[in-house]
Structure formats: C-alpha cells, structure tokens
C-alpha cells in the first residue's frame, strides 16, 4: 500500500474509533438504558453470539439484493436501448421511469406480499428491481446519447448497420454511465431489500431479524443485525464502485 493510500484510510478509521469510544463512554457514564441505546461493547457481545444468524440473514438479504439488482438493471438497460432508438418509446418509457423512481416501496411491499404470498422471496426481489430500474435506466440512456460525432461519422463511413453501430459504439460508450447508475442503485437496492422485509413474510433476512429482535426487547441484538446491514450495504457499494472504476479506467476516464 502506498503512503497516500494509507493516509486515505487512517483518517476515517481514527474518526470511527474515536466515535465508538465516545459512544461507549457516553452510554456507560450517563447510565443510558439499553432500550434507548446499547453500548458498542454490548452490541459486539451480541454480534459474536448471533454471528451465524447474522451471516445467514445477510446472505438471504444479499441474495434478494443481487437478484433484484440484476433483474432491474437488465430490464432498465433493455428499456434504455429501445428508448435511445425510438422517440416514441422514449416518450413512453421516460415518464414510467420517473413514476417508478418516486414510487414508495413502503406502499409497494405489502401489496406485493399479498400478491405473491408470504412464503415467497419474489415480492422482495421485485421491490429491489423496481427501485433499481430508474437510476440505471436514466444513466444508461444518457450514456447511449453521448456518442461522439466522429465515431458516428466513422461508422457511417464504414456503412455499418444500426445493429453494428449499437454493438460497437453506442453500448461500449454507454458502459461507464451504466456502472455509475449501478453504483447509485446499489445503496438504494440494499435499503429497499431490508425495508421490504419489515412487512411480514419470510423471517430469514436482516430486516425481519431487526424487527423481531426489537419487538423482543433484544436491543443489542437488533443493533448487531443493523451492523450486519451496514456491512452488507458497504459490500454492494464497494463492489459496484470497483466495477465503475475499472470500466472508467479501461476507457481512459
């Protein structure tokens, strides 16, 4: 690791440790009740105790995020390709994307639960797909419209078919935009997957574990699952960020 990379990591880590120390001192010193705010050591104690459970819950929720992310993006990319090609499709699809982006998942989740039954993961994955659609669609469409004039001329000079143009210039050129959209979508996707679990159904994910721990007054345990949720969010964020950087670097961005 280079010196600058070390410096980039040291500051946030020091800040985090300091915040944890203050938190611990505050909870212990002021005698805060655990249902208001458990201390970091109590949370870690619980985390160690329920680690296998946190792990399996994170896997279940993570799977929902992954499937929803993939399905939502594939549909969004397809829709963006169609919208970029035809003005009519665009006038249909862009408002749809806008409508989906303001649709409250809180309203959607219970409705889907009734539709698909409470033993199915489908409603949760659908919720994730829905929130992923808009950011991916909007960014991909912007990317598809960024074709450089000189590239358009070049492909015209080679008498390339519309299909060839899409494959060799339009889509590769839009990839950095797609991955930016994915990075933006990934955080919302994790939040959506967890919140979707608050409305009943299967009890296997982080969201369900948090609500059930809280309703059993196991506050430290609820926080242990919250910690798991934060880590899950970080994993998705960092993975999509790495993808975005890799694609951008390949193109000299």
């Amino acid at each position, binding site marked *: 690791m280079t010196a600058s990379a070390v410096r980039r990591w040291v500051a946030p880590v020091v800040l985090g440790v300091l915040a944890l120390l203050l938190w611990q001192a505050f909870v212990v010193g002021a005698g805060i009740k655990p249902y208001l705010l458990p201390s970091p050591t109590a949370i870690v104690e619980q985390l160690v105790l329920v680690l296998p459970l946190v792990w399996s819950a994170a896997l279940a929720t993570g799977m929902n995020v992954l499937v929803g992310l993939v399905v939502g993006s594939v549909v969004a990319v397809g829709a963006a390709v169609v919208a970029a090609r035809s003005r009519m499709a665009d006038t249909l699809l862009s408002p749809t994307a806008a409508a989906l982006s303001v649709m409250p998942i809180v309203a959607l989740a219970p409705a889907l639960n009734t539709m698909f039954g409470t033993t199915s993961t489908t409603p949760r994955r659908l919720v994730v797909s829905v929130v992923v659609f808009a950011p991916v669609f909007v960014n991909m469409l912007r990317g598809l419209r960024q074709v450089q004039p*000189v590239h358009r001329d070049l*492909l*015209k*000079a*080679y*008498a390339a078919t519309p299909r060839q143009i899409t494959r*060799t*210039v339009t889509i*590769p050129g839009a990839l950095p935009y797609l991955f930016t959209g994915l990075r933006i979508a990934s955080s919302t996707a994790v939040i959506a997957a967890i919140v979707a679990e608050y409305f009943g159904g299967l009890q296997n994910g982080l969201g369900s574990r948090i609500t059930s721990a809280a309703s059993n007054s196991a506050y430290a345990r609820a926080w242990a699952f919250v910690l798991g949720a934060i880590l899950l969010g970080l994993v998705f964020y960092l993975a999509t960020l790495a993808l975005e950087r890799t694609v951008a670097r*390949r193109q000299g961005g």
Partner: protein
Amino acid sequence: MSAVEARGVGKVFSSRSGDVVALEGIDLTVAAGEFVALIGPSGCGKSTLLRLIADLDAPTTGELTVFGKTPQQAREAQDYGIAFQQAGLLPWRTVTANVELPLELHGVGKAERAGRARELLSLVGLDDFAGHFPHQLSGGMQQRVAIARSLAERPSLLLMDEPFGALDEMTRERMQTELVRICAESGAAVVFVTHSIPEAVFLSQRVVVMSPRPGRISAVVPVNLGDVRGEGLREDASFFAAVTAVREALHGTPVTARGVDLR
C-alpha cells in the same frame, strides 16, 4: 473513370444565426490513382469538401460522383477509406482492435484480421503498442493508428484530413515516404488535406489551393516531380520551385492563370 468528379459543388450550412457558405462552385476531377492535395487557410472548407465526397454530408448544389457513382453508393460499396482530422479511435478498444474495426464490420475472419492489423501496425511503426489502449498513446501515435485503420481494406480512394498534423517532423517525413509508396503500390487515389506546403508538394501530383469565405478553388498547381519520390527529392531544386509556386498561389500573388485546371 475518375475517382472523384465535382461539378459546381456548393455547400451552405444554415443555422439560426444565419447561413454559412462553406463551399461554392467547386469543380474538381481526381483521376483514379492520382494524389491530390488540398491546401488553404483555416475555415476554407477543406474538411467540408472531404465530408461531401465521403457522403457524411450532402452538397447543397452541384453534382458529385465517386467512381461514377453517387457518393452514397460509393460509401455503401466501401470504395474509400477515411482518416479524420481527429483520430477518432474507440477508447475501449486496443490499438489492434481499432485497426481491425472496418475488417470486423465487413465480416473478415479473425486470423486474417489479426494478420492485416500486424502488417499495418508495423507499417506505421507501432508494433510494440498493439495491446495498448488509445489513452496510453500520444496524439501523434493515435493519428498513426487512425491512418493504419483507413488503409485496412486497401481502398481505391483515400480521404485524409491533416493526418500528419500531430506528428513530429521526422515521423512525418517517414510517414509521407510510406504513403507515397503505399499509393504507388495500391494504385489508390488520394485526396489529402494539409496545411504544409512542402508536404503537399512532396506527396501530390496536383495541389489544389483554396480560399475562404466562400470556400472556392483559387488555383490548381501541377507538381511534376515524377512517381518515384525518395528522400533526395526534398533537397532538389525542382522541389523548391514547386513549393514556391504553391506558396505564391496560396498568398494570391499572380502566378499562372487562376482558377484554371493546369493539366
């Protein structure tokens, strides 16, 4: 049959802020296998003329044929190769993949593509950069990749817009010698836009001098330096005489009859 035939070609760009007459009354014939250089001040319509021949824009007036066909038919038949003023490489493709692009688009097999790309890259002196991406190359190197790409399909007409503009003097002279050789071997006609008088003279059989606002052909200077053009030519008296003739035509000093094809 002539490679390019323009009769009274004009091009007007209309915009909200008014019309720009980019070209007016262009009469030009480029014979098959002939090397013609276009020279003139910035904004006199050189790139525009090239784009009309390439069917990337349509003329407003006049008639234009390429190998006896409409520019569109010629483009669809892939009669020409083109190198733009900007390199225009695809940043997500390696140097090799960029050179292979036209071959790939026209269904040439993998092995043949790779072989041709290797050949072309060594021609432009970039063998060692085959696997690099464009952003890892200097501007001049990118331009050379674009030249290699334009030669990929051995076109019978080459349209080149200041292809050597970004090169250092040494590379530039080497590329000029190579280009003369390639064209002599392949029998390709070339329309070559440049800002350099010696370059125009060294390369071409005729230098077409243009003047701006509106873009017209103000003189055509024949260069009779023979078909075999070695490095020695650059120091020859006949070479300097031709350079002087083009310079005078460009600066508007009366040389010979203006606006007349001297062939």
